[in-house]
């Protein structure tokens, strides 16, 4: 397994996690569990940790997860300061490929944050200039999907790697009527086989956009990480095998570690089936999160163990 992959994680006081440890992750990791068990929060902890090559990358990832949870809109509408935004979740630590300790200080005079990252330390308060920068090797697709801007960003890498034709071939497998995908003047368009004109992607179903977003992100995250919240969003179950085949194949070629959440049993069954077909045994894992005596716990299953659970009709979602 590639050196940069997250193999284990230790999370303290981050969102719903008080004191949590998990290990044994693979190249592709599907995360399941009941509502409110912390699937997205777990993935966010992995996202923040893998993004944190530098302080500005860490701050960008923290602001991204707030935006994904739709809190940024709320706080911006209230004209909240950046320091208030960065202190909203309080202190936490996430240790994996990077060691992050995030300490929020809230005195009567002012709020500040002390960030310890891999032995270096930085203090942020209302007088500092705060820098945010995206780590381009880490991509997060939240459960509402990409904006046109985000899709444009990941599509760039498809073009740089000359994978446009391949992307169109994958799309034609998803929908026989699709001929070509393109971004023209910052907007995504699709041309259908029966038509000579391009139509805006927004005129098509959410599944097409999710499919394109995932494929482009796999190329964009080369030698990095891809996080997908609610992978099956908008995708009909009959297309899940095709999607998993693409994810397992491209993630291997591009050396990308993938984490994805799901609520769908069909999605889990499809994952197990395709991993078996592609003989991708060692590097495909299923991460089940569950609550046990009010503590969040996890089981990391190999492809064979997942297959066993499904055959035994054991609940895995």
């Amino acid at each position, binding site marked *: 397994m590639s050196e940069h992959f997250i193999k284990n994680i230790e999370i303290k006081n981050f969102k719903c996690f008080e004191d949590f440890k998990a290990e044994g992750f693979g190249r592709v990791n599907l995360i399941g569990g009941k509502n409110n068990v912390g699937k997205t929060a777990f993935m966010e902890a992995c996202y923040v940790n893998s993004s944190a090559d530098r302080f500005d990358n860490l701050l960008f990832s923290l602001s991204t997860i707030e935006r994904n949870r739709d809190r940024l809109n709320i706080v911006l509408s209230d004209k909240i300061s950046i320091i208030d935004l960065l202190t909203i979740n309080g202190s936490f630590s996430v240790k994996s490929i990077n060691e992050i300790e995030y300490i929020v200080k809230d005195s009567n005079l002012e709020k500040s944050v002390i960030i310890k990252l891999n032995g270096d330390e930085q203090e942020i308060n209302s007088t500092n200039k705060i820098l945010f920068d995206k780590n381009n090797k880490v991509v997060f697709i939240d459960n509402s999907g990409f904006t046109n801007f985000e899709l444009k960003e990941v599509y760039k890498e498809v073009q740089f790697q000359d994978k446009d034709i391949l992307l169109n071939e994958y799309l034609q497998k998803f929908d026989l009527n699709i001929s070509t995908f393109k971004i023209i003047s910052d907007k995504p368009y699709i041309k259908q086989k029966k038509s000579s004109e391009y139509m805006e992607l927004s005129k098509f179903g959410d599944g097409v956009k999710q499919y394109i977003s995932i494929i482009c992100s796999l190329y964009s995250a080369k030698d990095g990480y891809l996080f997908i919240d609610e992978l099956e969003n908008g995708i009909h179950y009959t297309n899940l095998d095709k999607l998993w085949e693409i994810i397992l194949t491209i993630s291997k070629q591009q050396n990308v570690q993938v984490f994805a959440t799901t609520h769908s049993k069909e999605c889990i069954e499809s994952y197990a089936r395709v991993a078996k077909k592609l003989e991708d045994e060692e590097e495909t894992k299923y991460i089940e999160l569950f609550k*046990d005596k009010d503590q969040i*716990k996890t*089981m990391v299953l190999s492809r064979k*163990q997942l297959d*066993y659970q499904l055959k*035994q009709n054991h609940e895995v979602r």
Partner: protein
Amino acid sequence: MRIILHEGKDDKKYIKRICNYLEIQVTDENFYEMRDKSTFFKEENEIYQLIKANSRISKMLFVLDADYKTNDSVYGGCDNAQREILKMIEKLGLSDRSDYYITCDPTTKNGYFETLFSLVFQMI
């Protein structure tokens, strides 16, 4: 959660029938099929790893056939099966939350689940 580790699909049916008769509610979640008797004695098998990783499992019952001592001098017959399964439960570190039942003719101490069932039906 309490679970029952059993050999094959027929054993699961028999155990479900007994549970129904005793008015003990069980679902598929409570059953772990080992596929055959030899799997019970393989410490590194995937099913044991799965069970050890699942902190929701509080107690477990190992149900396996005695078979015949004449066919297998190590694991065959009730006494051998009992000795070997106890060793395995201890190796797995599950002694404090496990129990076992060897299915056979209680008199000859040989046989299978079916042998026990047919004896019970004769008594009825």
